[in-house]
């Protein structure tokens, strides 16, 4: 059982190597001529105005929170969907109840304007 997962582990390592290899190769063969102007943050040729670690729109944060809620919901739906045929009507209705609770929250956030981007 677990040995089926060994190729996956190896493939992840190969994937990392696919990313790291060209980086290392590029570092070796490419020129390296640093210069304070070249290494400064790009801002269309101007001096960087202020720190880039600045305040950002709170809506991004909101999207992240909503994403966690919905992604968990998907995590709950996955096993349910796989065994739906075996659990029959009772299982279906139980999940509908759960989805109803989620939809109430979804409608609430919609009405509150959490999904507006203008």
């Amino acid at each position, binding site marked *: 059982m677990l040995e089926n997962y060994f190729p996956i582990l190896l493939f992840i390592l190969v994937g990392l190597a696919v990313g790291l290899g*060209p980086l290392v190769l590029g570092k070796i063969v490419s020129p390296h001529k640093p210069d304070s102007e070249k290494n400064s943050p790009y801002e269309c040729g101007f001096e960087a105005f202020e720190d880039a670690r600045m305040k950002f729109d709170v809506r991004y944060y909101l999207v992240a929170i909503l994403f966690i809620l919905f992604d968990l919901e998907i995590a709950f739906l996955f096993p349910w969907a*796989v065994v739906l045929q075996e659990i029959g009507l009772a299982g279906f209705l139980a999940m509908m109840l759960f989805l109803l609770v989620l939809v109430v929250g979804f409608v609430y956030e919609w009405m509150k304007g959490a999904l507006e981007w203008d």
Partner: protein
Amino acid sequence: MDFLANLFGSYWPAVQLTSWTLIKIIAIVLPLMIAIAYLTLAERKVIGFMQVRIGPNRVGYFGLLQPLADGVKLLFKEIILPTASNKTLFLLGPVLAIAPAFAAWAVIPFDATLVLANIDAGLLYILAMTSVAVYGVIIAGWASNSKYAFLGSMRSVAQIVSYEIAMGFALVGVLMCANSLNLGKIVMGQAGGFWHWYFIPLFPLFIVYFISAVAETNRAPFDVAEGESEIVAGFHVEYSGMAFAIFFLAEYANIWLVCALAATMFLGGWLSPVPFLPDSILWFLAKMGALVFFFLWFRATFPRYRYDQIMRLGWKIFIPITLVWIIFVGAMMQTSLGYLFH
């Protein structure tokens, strides 16, 4: 061989297994890399022809050596490490972006027997891998310590996670039909001709999945993250040389990946569309290629969405559609018409 067996002693079977698996992995990775390289050329050619141009045609016959020339050029460009950046994270970003796009191929079934790891949690693994790719984007944007990169990565990540939900819900529909997380079994559930493929009973989910896939890969018309007229190149504005090339390759690797997934889950993978033709890996490649062509076509056809429109489409249209369709399919399965959805 005997010499090697003696050298490794009792570790020999493990070494043998590892090297044999590595060979198989390379047999997947090498063609994939060539496919990625030539997708960049195909994109320029296809868009060129759609705009009545000829596209790249100087390097080699029909421009066939162009990807090679681009690769060599980028290899010899300096990798700039901005002074303000967090150096380690800055270099980790591109690696994290490309590794999952390759690693996910471990569970893709090319054929009834041709799959590297035939695991039961295949789809779960794919979802996990595609989620990891987001870290590459956000780490790159944050570690660059540049305003354009930061804003670009915020946009890009918010867009990716929004569409990941619609994508996840669409996959739930597939699972309801297939009753398995194993990608090979999902394909076999669609056996018997194209009218058994899941894109018919799950048509709205298929459309949502495919459009979400375009948004997930940050491709036109959803490429506000790149938005060259406002935030230059988004999260990879500070990257140059090979570090940039890796982000570029990751984007194309992801296109192949999402198309392979769409072909597997909705279009019957390696199965032949009609019973009198044999099943073969060629069908899988043809379906995947046709879907990839749509990506190029979209880019040549559609103007870019505005950011608020993207978020509205993801949250207010796709999520309700998928929810309704999941409930509909679930309800139908409780009736005598349930067989239509298996």
